[in-house]
C-alpha cells in the first residue's frame, strides 16, 4: 500500500523560478521590493536622472546579493534524517534531523528543513529551523513525522529552505535521496479486560534474564535496549554503558492469529490494526509472551521484550504488501 506523492499545482511564477533542484518563492515583502525597484527603474529610464540609475542599480544589486547569500546557505546544507521512535501509521513519531554545514568557512544562517510543498501527500514531517550552524559543524534538531500507511516507505521529500538575508525571497533546494522507513501498523488502545483475561497468574523464577523481576545482575548495553535500564552509577564507575537485568518470572503466553488477506483491503487492514494493537498492549502492559500465526503458519513464536515486539510489528508492517513492494 504505497503512499502517493502527487505533484501539486504551484503558481506559475514559482514554476518559472524553479530549476536544477532550486526553487524561489517571492514573499509579500519581496513583491513590494520588486515593485519599488521596477518603479525606480522606470523613473530612471524615463527621466534619465543619473542618481535614479544609481539607486536602481543598488536595488538590483541587493536582489543579486540576496540570491547569492541564500544560495550560499542552502548549498552547504547536508541533511540526514532518522526516525527516533517506533513509527506507527497515523501517529506522530520522533524524527531526528541532523543538519550539517558542509562548508569549512562561515556559518550557515537561518536555514530550515521542511517538506516539499509542491507535492500532495498525506505524510508529513514537522519543519525544523536552525538559527546558525557553525562551519563544519552539525546540529541535531528534533521533529516529528506522521506516515499514513504501514509498510516500507520513503520519508516525505524534504527541502532545505532559507529566507536569508532579507526575507524577500524563499530559496529552496531539494534534498537528494529519501530515507526509507518501516511504518508499523496503526494501533489503538485495547480494552484492559482483554489484558486481564490473557494473564494466567504469577509464575516461578526461571533463572533466566528478563526486563522485570528480582535483580539479576549487570550486563553491557547493546544497541536498541531501553535507555532507562542503564545503571548510571555503574556506567560512570566502569566507563562504559551497562544495564540492569532481572530474573524472569513465569508469564502467560498467547498466540494471535491473522487470517491471510491482501494488503489494502479494508477488512485485512482492520484485522492487522487489531492484531498490532493487541500485541503492543500485551507486550508492553500485560507482559504476556505473544506469538503470531498467519493463517495456519506460526510466523513468530511467543516471546517477550522490545526486540520480540519489533519482530512481530515488522511482520505485520509488511504482510500482504510484498507484491506492491516488488512492483
Amino acid at each position: 500500500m504505497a503512499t502517493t506523492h502527487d505533484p501539486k499545482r504551484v503558481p506559475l511564477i514559482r514554476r518559472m523560478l524553479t530549476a536544477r533542484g532550486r526553487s524561489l518563492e517571492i514573499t509579500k515583502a519581496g513583491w513590494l521590493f520588486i515593485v519599488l525597484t521596477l518603479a525606480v527603474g522606470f523613473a530612471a529610464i524615463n527621466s534619465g536622472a543619473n542618481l535614479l540609475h544609481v539607486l536602481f542599480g543598488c536595488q538590483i544589486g541587493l536582489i543579486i546579493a540576496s540570491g547569492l547569500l541564500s544560495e550560499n546557505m542552502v548549498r552547504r546544507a547536508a541533511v540526514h534524517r532518522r526516525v527516533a521512535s517506533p513509527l506507527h501509521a497515523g501517529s506522530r513519531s520522533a524524527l531526528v534531523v541532523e543538519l550539517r554545514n558542509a562548508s569549512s568557512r562561515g556559518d550557515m544562517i537561518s536555514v530550515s528543513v521542511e517538506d516539499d510543498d509542491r507535492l500532495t501527500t498525506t505524510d508529513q514531517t514537522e519543519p525544523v529551523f536552525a538559527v546558525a550552524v557553525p562551519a563544519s559543524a552539525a546540529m541535531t534538531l528534533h521533529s516529528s513525522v506522521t506516515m499514513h500507511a504501514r509498510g516500507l516507505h520513503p520519508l516525505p521529500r524534504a527541502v532545505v529552505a532559507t529566507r536569508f538575508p532579507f526575507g524577500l525571497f524563499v530559496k529552496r533546494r531539494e534534498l537528494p535521496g529519501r530515507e526509507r522507513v518501516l511504518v508499523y501498523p496503526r494501533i489503538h488502545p485495547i480494552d484492559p479486560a482483554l489484558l486481564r483475561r490473557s494473564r494466567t497468574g504469577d509464575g516461578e523464577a526461571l533463572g533466566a534474564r528478563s526486563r522485570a523481576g528480582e535483580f539479576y545482575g549487570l550486563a553491557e548495553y547493546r544497541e536498541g535496549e531501553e535507555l532507562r535500564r542503564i545503571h548510571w552509577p555503574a556506567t560512570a564507575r566502569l566507563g562504559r554503558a551497562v544495564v540492569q537485568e532481572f530474573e524472569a518470572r513465569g508469564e502467560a503466553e498467547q498466540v494471535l492469529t491473522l487470517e491471510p488477506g491482501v494488503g489494502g483491503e479494508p477488512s485485512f487492514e482492520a484485522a492487522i490494526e487489531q492484531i498490532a494493537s493487541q500485541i503492543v498492549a500485551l507486550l508492553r502492559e500485560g507482559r504476556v509472551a505473544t506469538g503470531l500465526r498467519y493463517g495456519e503458519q506460526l510466523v513468530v513464536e511467543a516471546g517477550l521484550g522490545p526486540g520480540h515486539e519489533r519482530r512481530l510489528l515488522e511482520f505485520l508492517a509488511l504482510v500482504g504488501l510484498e507484491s506492491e513492494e516488488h512492483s
Partner: protein
Amino acid sequence: MSWIERFARILGGRRAGANSGLLRLRDALSLLQAAIAVTAVSLAQSVSLWVVAVGVALTILAVVRPLPEQARKLTQRLWTSAIILALAASGARVLLGAELLIAGVDFLLLMIVERLFNRQRCREHMQLLMLGSVLMVIAAVIDAELHFPILLALYLPTATLALIINHLLSEGERLGRRVEFEVDRYGRRELSRLSRAALQVTAIAAVAGFVTFLAFPRFGVGVFLRGNLYGEETVGFSESVQLGGFGTIKNDATVIMHLVPLDQSGPYPARLTWHLRGSAFAKYESGRWTRARNSRTSNLTRSRGYELLDEHGKPPAEVVSAPYRFGGTSGKVLRVTPIPGFAAADQTVRVLVTMEDIGTDLLFAAGRPLGFSLAPRGALEERNRLGADLDDQVRVLDRRNGPIQYEFVGRVGEPTRAELLALGDPEVPAKLHAYINTELSPEFKALAKQITAGADTRLAKVEAVERYLLQNYSYSLAQPRSERVRKGELDPVEGFLFDTKAGHCEYFATAMTLLLREVGVPTRNVNGFYGAHYNRLGNFYAVRQADAHSWTEVYFDELGWVTFDATPPAGRTAGDDAPMFPRLANLADALRNTYLEYVIDYNLSKQLAVLEQIGVERQGHRVTVNWRQLAPWLVGLTGVVIASGIGRALWRRKRVVVPVEVAIYRRVLALMQRRGRGRREHESARAWAARLAIEGAPEAGALERFARRYDALRFAVERPSVEELARLRELAARLRDG
C-alpha cells in the same frame, strides 16, 4: 560592550515588552535609516520644516514611549483616524496650491512617525524601511548636491543591516519563543559577522549601482529637477532692484558660476578683474531701479552657432570658428569689427560658463558682450533659446529649471583716456534721453554741478564724480538709513550722499549714475559680478554670490558704453573673505563641480565617449570592439579582481590568530589520526587519553601527560609563557617519537 551595542542601547530606546539587545538594535537601525532619509529630503528642500520639527519631537516621544504590543483598540482607532486626517490635510494643501511633492513627503514623514510609535513587530519595521527607501528615491530625484551620495553611503549599510536583523527576528516571530531566544542569542554573539555580511551586501549593491550608472543607456532628458538654487530670492537680477539688496549677500560664499577661459593657456592668475555684466537699468525712482520704456533695445544676429549682440545697429564681429560645443575647440572665434578711435576694441575674452539656477534668465558676460552660444548638455538644455532685451541684456527664453552652460565672447578692452578725451562732451541724442532723466532734489542737482564744475569733457565729468565719491565716502556693508530717509524726506541715494556717507557698491554706483545724469552724461546702472577666483583643484574660476557687484556704464558715442566703477577698491573685493575656510571651500567646490559634471550631468554622449575610450565604438547600427584598446582595461580589471582576492585571503589568514598551544594540539590530533587512534568528536583531550589507556595504546601515557599540560595552558587565566609552550612542544615531540 561593542560600539554597536552601545549605540543600540542609546538609540533603541525603550521597548514595550521584551528588552532584548537585538530588538533594541533593530529599533536603533530603523530609526537611523529613517533619520538619514529625512535628512536627505530636508536638504533637498522637499519637505516642510515645521513637519520635520513636529516629526522629530514625536519621534523622541516614540523612542521613549512606544505603544505596547497589544495596543488598546481605542489607541489603534485614534492612530488610524490621525493618518486619515493627515492624508486629507495633504490633499487639501495640494488643492489650495501647495506643491504636490512637498505635501506628499510631509505625509510620508507622518507615516514614519506613526510606524515608530507602532514598531512592535517585524512587519512594521519592514514598512519603516520601505518608507525610508521611498524618501531616498525622492531625494535622488530632487537633490543634485554632493551631500546626497554621502547620505546614500551611510544609508545603504544601515538599511542592509536593519534588513538582515529584521529578517532573523521575523523568523523568531514566525516560529515561536524558542527560536526567538536563539535568534537573540546568536545575533548578539555574532553581531560582527552580521555586520560584515551587511557590508559585503552593501559593496555588491554599490558596485551594481556604479555599473548601472556607467553602462545603462540614457534615454531620458538627462537632468530631472535640479531646482533653483535660491528659490524666489533675487540677487539683483530681476525686473527691478531695490537699493540695498546686495548688502545681504556679500557674505554668501555659494559658488554660482564656473568660468573656464577658452582662449588662454596657463598659468592663470588667482583672481580675475572682469566685470561680468548681467542686468542694466535705466530708470531710477524712489530708491528703485527699473527699466525705462524708452530704453535702447538690442538685437541678436545668428551666425554659425553664435548669437551676436548688435553694436551701433550691426553685428560687432564676424564669426571665424565654431563654438565650443562643436568639437571643444579653443582660441579666437570672432574677428571684431574695428572701431575708429578705439584701439583696444578687439581685446576679447572667450569663456565657457556653467551657471547655476539663481532665479534669473539673464546671461552674464565680461566687459561688453559680443556674442553668446549655448552649450547644451542634454535634451532639456537644447530647448533653450536666446533673446535680446533692453540695454544689451541677453536672456534665455522660457528657461527651464536647472543650471545652464554657455559660451560668451566679451570685449574687455577699454578705450584709453586719450581716446575718451578726444570725444569731448558731445550732445546727447534724443534716443538717449532716458539715460539722463532724474527726479531728485535740488540739493542733489546742486551737488552734481558742484562736483563737476570746471569739467569741460564728458570724461572730465566722469572722473570728477568718481574722484569725489572715492575721496568723500566709505565702503560699508552695513545699510544705514538716515533719519531723513526713514521719514521719507530724502531718497536713499540722497541719504547716502548727504547723511550717512557710507554704503556698499549699489550706493556708489547709483550715486555716480545719477550725479552724471544731472550734468547731462548718459549713464545706466549695471548689476553683475566682479571678478572670479581660480580654483587650482578644479581648474576653473569660481564666481561666488559674494562677488555680486554694481557699477556704472557711461555712453561715449562711437566707443559705446564704457564701464566705470566708483566703489572703492576694498569694496570691490569685499566678497573675497566670504568663505570662512578658503582652501576647504575650494576643495568642496572642486568636488562639487566634478560631481555635477561627471555624475549629475552624465549623459548619453558622455557614455559613448567613455565606451569609445575603452575601445567600444558605434558605427551606424553596428558596434565594433577595438581589442587592442580594450585589452589593457580588461587586464587591469582582472588584475584588480585577483589582487582583491589575494588581499582578502591574506587578511582573512591574518585575522584568524591561532594560539600556539592550540596549533601544537592540532598537530598532535593529526598525528594520532594518521596512526588510527584519533580523537572522537565528543571527547576531551583527557577522555581521549583515558580511552586509549583502556584500549592499551602504547602512546596512552604520553598522551595523558600531554593532555593534562595542554588543558592547563589552554584554559588558564593568563597566556602561557614561552617556557611552558616549550614544555608542551617537548611532550608533543615525545608523543611523536613514541
